[in-house]
C-alpha cells in the first residue's frame, strides 16, 4: 500500500454526451439495517465519481437504486433532468459492469456486445460495426468469437465494459468491477477504464472499497459510512483536507498522535501543527498526521525507537515506537534508508503541514 495517491489532474472530462445525475435524499432499509440513510449525490455531466467506503456501507445499494434494480424507500433519482425514480431498469438507458462475471455464457464476446443493440433493433450492419468498434476500444478485437469460459477474468470484464458502452448509455455504473481480478490486471484495467471513460465522456459512478483505486480513477471521490456520504471531494482535497477522522483514516495512511489544541494549532510531539477547519480547537485531541508530514532523525537522546525500515521504491517507510506513546509511520526519501536501523533511537517531529484534530477523551 502506498501513501501518496496517484492522481490524475482534476478533469472537467471533455464529454459532449455526458448528462447530469442527481440522487436526492435516498433512503433504503433492509429490516433494521439502514443501507441508505438520506444519501444525496450529484454527478456533473461527464464526471467520474467513485463511491468509496468499507464493506456494507451502502455503496452497492446506492448504485442499484440508480440502476433501478432496487427500489428506494424514499428520495428522488434524476438523470438529465428527468425523474427516473419509478422507471424500470430496462428503460433507464444504463450501462452496468458487475463485480461478478456477467457475460452471457451461451454467447460469444461479439454476441454479448451486440445483445443490447439487437434489443434496440439496430440493423445488422450498424450493429456489427458498433460491436467491432467497442471490442476494439477495449482491445479485444482478436477474441471476438470466444465464449466467456475461454476468456480470462480481466478479458471478461473488458467485454462486459464494451457491452455496457455499446448501447451508448446515459450513465455508466461500475460496481467493484475489478475486485475479482489479481493485482496487476486490476491496476491495468482501472487505468484503461479511466482512459475509455474520458474518451467516451459518459457520466460514470464507480463503486469500490479500494481507496487507491478510487483516488486513481475518479474526478471526485465520495466516502460513505453507514448509508451516508461523509465527504465528497477531488482526490487531492480528500487526502489533504479530510473533514473527519473517518475519512482521514479510510483514505491513505494516518498517524493518530495525541496533542493539545489551542485555537488553530495543536501541540504535538514538541511541535505546533496548524489545524484544518472542522478540527477541535481546545483540550486534549488526537491529531491525524500523514506519514509524509512527519520528519525523523537519528538522535541518541530521542523519544522514539525504530521498529522497522522498509524500502518501497520511490520512498521508504520508518516505523517507530514513541516511548509511552503510539507507533508512528514516517515516510522518508529512499536514499535515507541507510540512516536508520531497528533499535536505533530517533526523534520524530511533525513538519507543520495542516492536519485534522478530533477531541480525545482523557483515559
Amino acid at each position, binding site marked *: 500500500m502506498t501513501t501518496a495517491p496517484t492522481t490524475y489532474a482534476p478533469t472537467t472530462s471533455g464529454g459532449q454526451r455526458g448528462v447530469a445525475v442527481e440522487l436526492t435524499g435516498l433512503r433504503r432499509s433492509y429490516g433494521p439495517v439502514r443501507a441508505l440513510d438520506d444519501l444525496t449525490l450529484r454527478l456533473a455531466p461527464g464526471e467520474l465519481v467513485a463511491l468509496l467506503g468499507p464493506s456494507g456501507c451502502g455503496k452497492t445499494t446506492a448504485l442499484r437504486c440508480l440502476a433501478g*434494480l432496487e427500489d428506494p424507500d424514499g428520495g428522488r433519482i434524476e438523470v438529465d433532468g428527468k425523474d427516473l425514480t419509478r422507471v424500470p431498469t*430496462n428503460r433507464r*438507458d444504463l450501462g452496468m459492469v458487475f463485480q461478478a462475471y456477467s457475460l*452471457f455464457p*451461451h454467447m460469444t464476446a461479439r454476441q454479448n456486445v451486440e445483445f*443490447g443493440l439487437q434489443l434496440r433493433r439496430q440493423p445488422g450492419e450498424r450493429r456489427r460495426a458498433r460491436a467491432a468498434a467497442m471490442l476494439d476500444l477495449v482491445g479485444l478485437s482478436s477474441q471476438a468469437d470466444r465464449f466467456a469460459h475461454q476468456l480470462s477474468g480481466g478479458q471478461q470484464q473488458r467485454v*462486459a465494459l464494451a*457491452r455496457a458502452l455499446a448501447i451508448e448509455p446515459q450513465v455508466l455504473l461500475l460496481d467493484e468491477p475489478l475486485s475479482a481480478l489479481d493485482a496487476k490486471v486490476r491496476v491495468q484495467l482501472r487505468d484503461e477504464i479511466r482512459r475509455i471513460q474520458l474518451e467516451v465522456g459518459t457520466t460514470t459512478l464507480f463503486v469500490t472499497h479500494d481507496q487507491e483505486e478510487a483516488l486513481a480513477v475518479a474526478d471526485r471521490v465520495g466516502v460513505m459510512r453507514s448509508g451516508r456520504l461523509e465527504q465528497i471531494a477531488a482526490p487531492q482535497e480528500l487526502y489533504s483536507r479530510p473533514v473527519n477522522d473517518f475519512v482521514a483514516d479510510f483514505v491513505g495512511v494516518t498517524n493518530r498522535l495525541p496533542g493539545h489544541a489551542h485555537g488553530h494549532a495543536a501541540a504535538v510531539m514538541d511541535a505546533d501543527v496548524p489545524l484544518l477547519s472542522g478540527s477541535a480547537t481546545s483540550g486534549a485531541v488526537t491529531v491525524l498526521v500523514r506519514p509524509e508530514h512527519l520528519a525523523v532523525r537519528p538522535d541518541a537522546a530521542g523519544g522514539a525507537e525504530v521498529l522497522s525500515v522498509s524500502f518501497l521504491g520511490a520512498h521508504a517507510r520508518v516505523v517507530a515506537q514513541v516511548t509511552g506513546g503510539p507507533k508512528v509511520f514516517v515516510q522518508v526519501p529512499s536514499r535515507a534508508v541507510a540512516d536508520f536501523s531497528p533499535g536505533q533511537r530517533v526523534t520524530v517531529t511533525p513538519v507543520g503541514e495542516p492536519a485534522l484534530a478530533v477531541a480525545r477523551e482523557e483515559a
Partner: protein
Amino acid sequence: MAGPVSGQRAVMRRRQNAFRWAVVTVALLFFGAPLFGMLEFTTRDASGHRTAATWSQLADLGTISQRYPDLSAGLVASLWLAVLTVVMMLVLLVPTMTWVRLRLPGLSRTVEFLCLLPLTVPAIVLVVGLTPVYAWVTYLLNGSAVWLCFAYVVLVLPYAYRALDAGLRAIDVRTLSEAARSLGAGWGTVMARVILPNLRTAVLSAAFLTVALTLGEFTIANLFSRTNLQVAMYLLGKSDAQISVAVGLAALLFAIAILFAMSFVGGQRDTVSPLSRLRRHRQEPT
C-alpha cells in the same frame, strides 16, 4: 521409500477394482436376467420353436391397432400424457423457480419442500386425495386418460425440481438477468434469451425424466380406471401374454434409451449441450 506403500496401494486398488466389477456383474444379472427372460418368452411359439412372430406383429402398427384397440389407445394416451406433462411441468416450474431465485430467495426452502413432498406420499394416498379433484375433472372436461397429466405433474415434481435446480445453480441467474435488464431487456426477453438457453441441459433432463416416469406409470391410472400404456399392457397380459410382455420389453428398452440419452446430455460439464455447440459452430461464418 515409496516402494512398500505404493505396493500396498496397488493391492488395495486391485481389490477395489475386483469388488467394483463384482457389483456391476451382480447388478447386470439382476436387471438383465428378467429382460432376457422376457425376450426368450416372446420369441418362442407354442411348441417351443424360435419365432419372431410376436415382434413382427408388434412392428406392424396397422394390424396391432385393429387387433388390440386398447393397446394402441393406451399408447396414444401415454404419449399425449408425456407431452402434456412435460409442457405443464416446464411452464409451472421454470418461471416459478427462476422468480423465487431472483426475487423471493426466502421462499426457496418452502418451494423445495413442496416440490419434494410427492416423494413421501404413496401413490394410493395420492389417488385418495385426488379422487374429488378428478370427479370435477370428469365433470368439467371428460373421462379421458389424458387428464391424468394433472396428477402426473405432481408425481414428477420432485425429479423435475431436482434437475432444474441443478441447472439454475450452475449459472448466476441474478447477475445474468440484471445485466440483460440493464441492456434493455424486459422479463420475457430475459427468460427466453438469457435464462432458458443456459438451462438447456437441465430442461432436457427434467423433460426426459418426466417422459420416462409418465410412460411407466401404472398405479394411478389403474386406480382411476383410465387406460394408459401400462394399464393396457396389464389388461392385455390377461388375454395375450406374449404380446403384452413384448410391449413391456419394448417400453423398458425405450425408457433405458431415454435414461442413457439423459446421462449423455447431463454429463456435459458446462451448461452448453453438444448439440447447441455444434450448431453455433456452423453459424460462425455469418
